[in-house]
C-alpha cells in the first residue's frame, strides 16, 4: 500500500529531515510511527499525502508513484486519503454535520449521498445526536471523534493520523485508538504518528521508530528506547 524506497527529504534550509527511508506497509495494515519530536514523524506523513515532495528516492502510495502525480492531480490523489490531526482542525462556524461532510462536498457528491454517508460516519463514532451542534460545544474527545468521522467519511484507502491523542487523557486516547482499529478491521490502511509509547505497546501493532530522520526499527521488531 505504502512503499518508500531510499527516500530522502530535505527542507529548503537545513539538514535532511528524512534520510534513506525504506519501508513497506501492506494494504490493510495498522502501523504506528513513533520517535521523539523532530525525528521526522510528521514529515513522513506529509510526504505520503503529498503535502510536501520528497527530495530523492521513490514513494509509492496506493499503486501510484508520487513523483508522477502532477500538481493538478494532487487533489484527486488526496481524495483517497483521510487525515486526523492533533488539534482536530474542525471549522468552528459550521455544524458537526457540515464538518464531517467536507470531504464529500469537496469531491462533488450528491446531497442525498452526503447525508447518508455523514450519518453513517457519525453513527460509527457515536455522535449522531450531535450533528446539529457546533464543534465548540463538544468536549475534546468528542471533537476528536468528529475529526475521525471526517477522515473516514469518504472511505479513504489510507488513514493518516498525526498525534491524534496528543491532547486527550489516557482513557479517551484508548477509545480513539480502538476506533482506529475498527476502521482498520474493515480494510483501511492506518498510519498513526504518536509518541505515546505505553499505549502503542498495548495496541500490539507494528511500530516504526524514527530517530533523527532514520528508521531505527523496522516493522515487527520493536526495541526498547
Amino acid at each position: 500500500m505504502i512503499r518508500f524506497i531510499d527516500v530522502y527529504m530535505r527542507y529548503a534550509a537545513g539538514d535532511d529531515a528524512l534520510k534513506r527511508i525504506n519501508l513497506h506497509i501492506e494494504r490493510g495494515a495498522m502501523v504506528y510511527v513513533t520517535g521523539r519530536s523532530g525525528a521526522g514523524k510528521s514529515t513522513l506523513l506529509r510526504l505520503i499525502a503529498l503535502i510536501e515532495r520528497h527530495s530523492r528516492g521513490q514513494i509509492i502510495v496506493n499503486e501510484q508513484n508520487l513523483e508522477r502525480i502532477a500538481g493538478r492531480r494532487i487533489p484527486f490523489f488526496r481524495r483517497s486519503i483521510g487525515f486526523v490531526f492533533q488539534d482536530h482542525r474542525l471549522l468552528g462556524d459550521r455544524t458537526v454535520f457540515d464538518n464531517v461532510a467536507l470531504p464529500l462536498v469537496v469531491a462533488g457528491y450528491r446531497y442525498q449521498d452526503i447525508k447518508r454517508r455523514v450519518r453513517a460516519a457519525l453513527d460509527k463514532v457515536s455522535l449522531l445526536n450531535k450533528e446539529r451542534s457546533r464543534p465548540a460545544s463538544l468536549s475534546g474527545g468528542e471533537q476528536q471523534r468528529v475529526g475521525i468521522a471526517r477522515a473516514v467519511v469518504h472511505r479513504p484507502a489510507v488513514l493518516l493520523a498525526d498525534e491524534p491523542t496528543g491532547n486527550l487523557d489516557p482513557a479517551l486516547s484508548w477509545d480513539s485508538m480502538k476506533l482506529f482499529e475498527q476502521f482498520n478491521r474493515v480494510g483501511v490502511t492506518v498510519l498513526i504518528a504518536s509518541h505515546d509509547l505505553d499505549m502503542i505497546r498495548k495496541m500490539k501493532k507494528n511500530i516504526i521508530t524514527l530517530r533523527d530522520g532514520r528508521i531505527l526499527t523496522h516493522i515487527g521488531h520493536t526495541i526498547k528506547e
Partner: protein
Amino acid sequence: MRRRRRKAVSIKGLQRAFLTWLAQHAQACVFNLGQLCKNPLSSLMTTAVIGISLALPAGFYLLLENANRLTGRWDGTVQITLFLRQDLDAARTKALADELSGSAQIASVQLISPAEALAEYQRASGFADVIDTLGENPLPPILLVRPEFSAPGAEQVDGLLSELAALTAVESAQFDRQWVRRLFAIIDILQGSIMILSVLLALAVLLIVGNTIRLAIYNRRAEIEINKLFGATDAFIRRPFLYAGLVHGLGGSLIAWLLLQASIIALRGRVGELARLYYSNFALSGQDLAQAGLLFFAGGLLGLAGSWLAVSQHLKALEPA
C-alpha cells in the same frame, strides 16, 4: 450494442459531471451569500465604496454626454454664416443658395429669409413689441453654409471663407473658428480627463475588491487548508471568492446606478431652470439601458478581476500546496 451502451454511459457520466459542476457553483454562490449576510455592515461598506468609485466616472461621462448633446445642436461641425446684401430679392437668394449647394466644397446650405430671421428673433429675444414698431424688416437674408470638411481649423475652411466673402452678393462672411476650436479643445480635455479618471477609479475598484477578498481569504485560511487536504481543487477553492468579487462588483454597480439616478433627479430641475433662461428646451438626460448595462458589466467584471487577482496571488501562499 455494446458500443451504444458505452456511449450512453459516457453521456450519463458527462451529464453527471455537469450536474456536479452546476451544484458546486450553486453551493459556492449560496455559501458566499451566507457569508455576506453574516457580515452585512462591512460588506455594505465595501460595496458602497465600490459604488462611489464607479459612480464618479459614470457621472462625469453622463455630464459630458449631456454637454455633447447641447453642443450637438451645432452638430459638432463648423458653420459659415453668410450675411447677404439687403437688397437681394428672394429669387436671387434662392439661386445663390442652390449654386452654393452644388459646390463640391460645401456639404449643405440653409437659407434663412429676412422674414424667418425676424420671426426667430422676435420669439427668442422677447423684444416682440419693439420690433413690431419697426416699419420694415432690418434683417438681411442669411445663408448658413456647412463646409464638406468638418475638421475644425482645417486650412480649407479659411480658403472657402475668403472665396465666399468675395462673392458680390455677400455683405460679410463669418466663421466662429476660434470659438469652435476652443470648445472642441475643452471637450477633448474633458474626455481625456474622464478617461484618466475612469482608469484610476477602475484600478481603485480592483484594489478594493482585491483587498476585501484578501481579507476574506485570510479569515478563512483554516477552511481553505482543510479543503485542500481533503482534495479540493483550486477551482473549488477559488469559486466562492470569485462569486464574492462578482457580487461586490454588481452591488457596487447598483449603488452607483442609484447614486446617478438620485443626482439626475436632484439636478434636473435646476438645469431646466437654466435652460429656460436661455430659451432652450434642453433637459438633462439620464443613462439609457445600454449605458446602465455597461455600468453593471464593468462593475461585475472589475469585481471578478479583482478577486481573481487576489485569489491567484494568495492561494499559492497557503499550505498545503
